[in-house]
């Protein structure tokens, strides 16, 4: 990685923990170029400002020893710091006011240059929606890198769905030292990209989620909300996207579904109702040809229709409606599950996908 003097100044400033991000931007505004920070005399600086400790430690940071130690630390951890002055910095983010100084990355940094699409969902997402999310993430990842959070539920499904193509970007609300806790994120580190706007050693705080969500919306061409409760954090991402004038897509939900109230609210505000990838890709001028579904036997069709009729159907009820005996029914259900047409939702109940 080749850094300019400006890049190095931003990376150094980014690593200083005693100063808030906002103050760092204010500091940078005083200079023509960030590299001027290297020549600044911070001991004189503190007389003008009076905050001795803070500017003392900034002064300590802008030395060659600190910088080389910092860079070798990042290298050892496999972290690549991408400052906003770098060519690698995602172009959609550049124009925003609240862009992060530095993006800390692990994995395929070149994914930052690709057009990206954001898929977010809440932790409590219905099992059939998870399946649909996986599918749509797979379909979209052919044309976009998929940006998503790192939580359970919807985010997880989007990650799993897109990682096979190696085009997953997971954005963390904490430093990368704390990021990889799940197996799936190890795979993303190997095949995709882990991103955090926070220095590696910073652990998470509540308001970090907000910052993270804003970045996800900022770097993407569009946002798909697969599930969101009434007060879900996912809505922040959607609202940021609306603010930036980016298209927001949402799955429609049945009235009364707790995990979909937020998504329905978005639809009322003008998000595009979405069922599958065909509702998204034409907006970006992309033609998509769906691979035909695997064929179903008559019994499978019968059972599938029965499950599609109700929203969530219990095995016993399917048995009653289709008159199949237990063993035959389980075989059919299992076949449908393997063909990705239904999904088990706990308590021997099934949902259509």
């Amino acid at each position, binding site marked *: 990685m080749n850094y300019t003097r400006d890049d190095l100044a931003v990376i150094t400033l980014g690593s200083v923990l005693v100063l808030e991000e906002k103050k760092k931007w204010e500091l940078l505004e005083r200079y023509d170029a960030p590299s001027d920070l290297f020549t600044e005399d911070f001991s004189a600086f503190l007389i003008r400002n009076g905050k001795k400790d803070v500017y003392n430690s900034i002064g300590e940071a802008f030395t060659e020893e600190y910088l080389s130690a910092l860079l070798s630390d990042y290298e050892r951890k496999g972290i690549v710091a991408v400052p906003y002055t770098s060519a690698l910095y995602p172009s959609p983010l550049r124009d925003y006011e609240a862009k992060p100084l530095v993006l800390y990355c692990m994995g395929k940094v070149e994914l930052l240059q690709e057009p990206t699409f954001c898929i977010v969902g809440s*932790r*409590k997402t219905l099992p059939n929606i998870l399946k649909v999310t996986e599918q749509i993430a797979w379909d979209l990842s052919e044309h976009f890198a998929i940006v998503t959070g790192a939580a*359970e*539920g919807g985010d997880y499904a989007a990650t799993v769905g897109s990682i096979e193509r190696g085009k997953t970007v997971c954005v963390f609300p904490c430093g990368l030292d704390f990021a990889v806790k799940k197996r799936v994120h190890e795979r993303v580190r190997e095949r995709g990209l882990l991103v955090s706007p926070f220095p590696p050693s910073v652990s998470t705080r509540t308001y970090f989620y907000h910052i993270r969500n804003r970045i996800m919306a900022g770097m993407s061409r569009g946002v798909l909300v697969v599930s969101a409760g009434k007060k879900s954090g996912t809505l922040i991402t959607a609202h940021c996207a609306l603010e930036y004038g980016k298209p927001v897509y949402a799955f429609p939900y049945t009235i009364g579904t707790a995990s979909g109230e937020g998504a329905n609210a978005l639809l009322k505000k003008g998000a595009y109702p979405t069922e599958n990838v065909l509702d998204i890709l034409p907006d970006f001028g992309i033609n998509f040809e769906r691979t035909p579904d695997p064929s179903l036997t008559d019994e499978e069709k019968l059972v599938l229709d029965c499950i599609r009729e109700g929203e969530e159907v*219990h*095995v*016993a009820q399917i*048995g009653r409606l289709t008159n199949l005996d*237990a*063993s*035959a029914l*389980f*075989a*059919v*259900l*299992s*076949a449908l*599950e*393997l063909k990705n047409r239904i999904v*088990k*939702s*706990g*308590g*021997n*109940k099934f949902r259509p996908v």
Partner: protein
Amino acid sequence: MLANVKCFTLNGLDGYAVDVEADVNNGMPSFELVGLPDAAVKESKERVRSAVKNSGNVFPTHKITVNLAPADLRKEGTQFDLAIAVCILKATGQLYIGDENVVFLGELALDGKVRGVSGMLPLLISARDRGYTTFFIPKDNENEASYLSGITVYPVERISEIVSHIGGENLIEPIRPHLFSGSSVRDDADLSFVKGQAVAKRAVEIAVSGGHNILLVGPPGAGKTMLARCIPGILPDLTFEEALEVTKIHSVAGILTEEGIVSNRPFRSPHHTATTVSLCGGGNTKIHPGEVSLAHNGVLFLDELPEYNRSALEALRQPLEDGVITIARSVGAYRYPASFILCASMNPCPCGNYGSEKPCNCSPYDIKRYRAKISGPLLDRIDLQVEVDSVSYDDLISEKQEEPSSAVKLRVEAAREIQRKRFRGKIHTNSEMRERELSVFCKLSSECETILKSAFSRLDLSARGRARMIKVARTIADLDGSAEIEPKHILEAVSYRTFER
């Protein structure tokens, strides 16, 4: 004067002959017991002295030395009392026995009564296998001995009876062999009382037919325990050989009932506070069989699986795979059979309501953590993982006739018969198949392979998980009466492995 008689001691389930030798000499009156006796055997000196005196015989006031040979083998248990007493009587000429191969087993009371000992059946069986045919045993152990043929067993209540019997007066009637009549009474757990639960019932039927392990997941009060209690009722009856195996273990553990033989399949349900040793077996001086061995040929039911001590559960892994457990301690390594059906139950989440009508207030993380208490390798060994539904009130009072256990048992027995013919004695059930049998009896069509392959990647199966899934499919095919494993059998087997972690 010198005399000797035979006795037996146990090492695990195997008995070893012990020569009890007594030498009565002139000299300072004393009573020495040598030959590596443990504490209980050492104490027999005092019991023998009082018992001989109080049964109307004379305890010699001489220098007495009793040796238990082979002297390097550790002697356990209280069954030596009778042999030592008889040997002293023989050495002092109060009793004459020509045949040196008569075996005496029994504990003595101070008044000369003979008390029952544990482990009688394995002692008798191993003695019989070594060619001994005449036995004197406590009357308390009469029933246990009555199922063995080809030996003459005299039940005795007092030492004096032996003296008079050998002297030719008041002959003791030898035990008449009983015929094994199979299972006797059943308790009242019957599948006809379990309402609904089509999935779980079918899974239980498959588990029992092929000897597979099963995990029942369901909200509290759904009937998991009740289902589990029905399992012994649909298991095929114990054969005589199986019953003897089980009785041997129960006899060693000292938990045999009056009946003398275990005629029903054991159903063991240790509480979740059970320790590793209580589950697997062990102990300081005497190595007791654990719950896994007591459940041999039957069912080990672990209710509320995540509540068990983690290390205790992990210890089950090896017996689940091998069907035997070898317990190694400083005093020696003991091997007990432990071939059982593991039936476990658990709630789907900490609050218990996940997937039921009632609202579940657990976060996905809570649920994951709760389920992670069951380790992957253990879950891998549980072939069938099914959800038990919460029962609605309407179901409970419905008059719909559910299939009784007896009807299910018929199907199970038919499936077991197919397996018995297939394996011809070497193994009994599909679950015991090894790679060799799998390759011979479980050939898969290309269509089946395709299904299995997609299930393999989807469910993140291990190689063992795959083999176990094929075994379950084999059992389903057997229940179906089909010689080949068809796609529908594989698909059904896949549907029972869906417990998400």
